[in-house]
Every structure is written in C-alpha cells, then in structure tokens.
C-alpha cells in the first residue's frame, strides 16, 4: 500500500476488529455445535420451526406444524427446563416431494425439544392450535415480592 494511503488505526478500530473477530468465532462455535439437518430419517421426524418468547407472567412457545391435526399433537415437559413437542403428520412426506432424489426416506412426525430458560409451572400449561401454529402458554413461577417503601 502506498505510504500516503496508510492510515494510523485508532483504538476504536482495534476494538471494532476485536469485537468482529469475537463475533465470527462465536458464530463458528454456534455452527459447530448446533448445525445439523432439520430431519432424521431413522426416527422419520422433521424438526419444526419453533420459538420461545419470555413475557413477564408467562413463557410462550410456538411451533409451525403444517400437515397436522390438533388431536395428533403432544406437548410434554421432559425435564424442568425442556419442553418436547411431538406431532403426527396427516400424511407422510418424502424427500422426493422436496425435489430431492439422492436421499431416501419418509417423514411421519414433527419433533423438537426446546429449552425454557426460566422456571415455569408446567401443570398450568395451556395450548391452542390455530392456522397450523401451536401455541403453548407456560405460567412463570413466582418468586417473592419486595415491598417498596
């Protein structure tokens, strides 16, 4: 690089580079640990899209479950901070329907496990299923109140 174009790098540039490197590294770690197919041919399961929303009074878990009926859905707290959603599909789907011919397998179920990051009272869990979206409401466990003086 010509001498005239060389620029002294400020402390902020260095911090910004450091933060960027750190973000890249954490993304790589995330990919290394979490990236896997969204399907499993051995268990004939597809992992549905799922999200967790933490509100002041409750945790709301939603999952996109197309090709399913409400009576075929099961929701279970498998341990104190993990919720499992299972659903049988109305009809089996195969890789071929997705335009994939080099893999073989059929899928009959949705299954996912999601971590609930705060304490909830699973006995008071309520569910609803509308437009193919499952919504699970889990009331949060209360701690104690501090009187404001």
């Amino acid at each position, binding site marked *: 690089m010509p001498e005239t174009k060389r620029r002294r790098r400020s402390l902020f540039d260095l911090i910004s580079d450091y933060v960027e490197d750190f973000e890249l590294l954490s993304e790589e770690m995330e990919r290394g640990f979490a990236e896997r197919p*969204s399907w499993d041919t051995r268990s004939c399961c*597809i992992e*549905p*899209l799922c*999200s967790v929303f933490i509100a002041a009074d409750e945790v709301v878990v*939603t999952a*996109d479950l*197309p*090709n399913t009926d409400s009576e075929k859905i099961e929701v279970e707290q498998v341990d104190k901070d993990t919720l499992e959603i299972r659903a049988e599909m109305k009809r089996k*789907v195969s890789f071929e*329907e*997705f335009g994939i011919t080099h893999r073989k397998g059929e899928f009959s179920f949705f299954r996912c496990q999601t971590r609930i990051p705060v304490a909830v009272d699973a006995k008071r869990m309520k569910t609803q299923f*509308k*437009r*193919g*979206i499952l*919504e699970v409401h889990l009331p949060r466990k209360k701690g104690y109140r501090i009187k404001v003086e």
Partner: protein
Amino acid sequence: MSEPVRIVERKPVLSNATMLHGLPDVGLVGLIATSHIISQLQMGEIAYVDSELLPPVVVLHEGLPYAPLRIFGNKGLIATLSEAAIPAKAVPPIMRKLVEWGQAKKVKLMVSMGGMPVQDRQDIAEPKVYGAASNQLLLKTLSDKGIEILRGGFMVGPYALIMRYCAERNVPAIALLAQSFYNYPDPEAAAATIREFSKITGLNFDVSKLVEGGEQIRLRARDVMKRTEQELNRMKKTQEYDLPLYV
C-alpha cells in the same frame, strides 16, 4: 480489484419493465409471492448476481447448477429471486447494485413485496397489506388503490435499502407489506401482497395454490426460513417494532 457485486446478463433485458423483488425476509413473504408469479408467468432466467460476499452455494435444478440469486424476465416484468438467505453483510452492496442495474435498464417501477410481522398473526384470517413509496405521487397511487400507507416507524432489511437507494436516485419504488409471521413461512401473506400487486399493475394471478397448498409450501420453506431468521437477527430486524423518536 474485482467489483464486490456483479450482475451477469444471460439474455437481453427488457427496458421500461416493472421490477419485482423476492428476497428472503420475514415470513418469506416476498420470496413465496415472487416465486409464484415467476412460475405463473413462466418467466425465464435473464441474469444472475455474482458476488464473493455470498456463500459458496449453487442451487441444482434438474441436475444443473444455478446461482441462488437470479433475475427472471417475461411480459414486461423483471423479478429478482433469492433461493438462499442473503448474509446480512452482503445485503447493502447487493441492494445498491440491484437498484443501479434496474435504473440502467430503465425500469419504470420497483416493487418490493414483503411481510410486516404482527403478534397473533394466527388470529388474522386475511392479512392486511400496507404500502410505502419512494415519492409522493406513488403514495397517492397506493392510497387511491385503497392501500393504507405506513406513515411512521422503521423499515429494516433488504426492502428498506431498496426503498432508500431508489429514493436517492429518483427511481420510482413501492413496497407492499402484508401482516405476517416473523419466523414462519407465510403463504397467505404472500397471496395478500399479490392481490394488491394485481390492483396496481392490472396483471391477474391465481393465488388459490398459495392458500390451498400453503401447508406444503410451509414444509418446504422451513430450512430457508431458519437461515433467513439468523440473518434477520444480525440485521436487527426487530428494530421495526421500535417506536420512532420524532413524530
């Protein structure tokens, strides 16, 4: 040094066309809608976007490799379609290039179709479509067609940048944004945007496949949606929920 983003033309490009954008965003609304229009009008590939900022991916169709971000054309329409999520860092240079290219091809209108995430989307039978435009005249056109205008707030992501670059360059542009899910594919919202697009262009499309075949689309679109959500998080897409400081 090579350009960070190149548009490689494979066939002659129509001038004075309407240019549609089907890019991965909330609910994959624009992607699903544009893909449906491309299929209904049997639009063929006329160009593709080449960039080192995009992941090393090709999409195979009937055994042949294609770029994930392609441009289609037919019957006075040009449509961009990305079959893979666009990395957040690549969004600004790619959107700028698409707008520059569209302007060079003398497009008469740029149309972004997308989603506007709402809570309780599952309680909405018919998603409402809101409009935004790059100039006053187009805002009036949208209002005259009965489309409610987004008067305030933030837009974040590819469509926000297309709108900004078009306004800077005096390229007429509108955005049609349907109430949608944030991170679940939403074919019903895509159908709603197509209905409004028809009102503006006079082109008619059968959207029954999107509504009746929605479950199949949602199954197929899961993986693209998941990767798109990761990029939306990097773009701080949730800033769209923020209240603006000035009114």
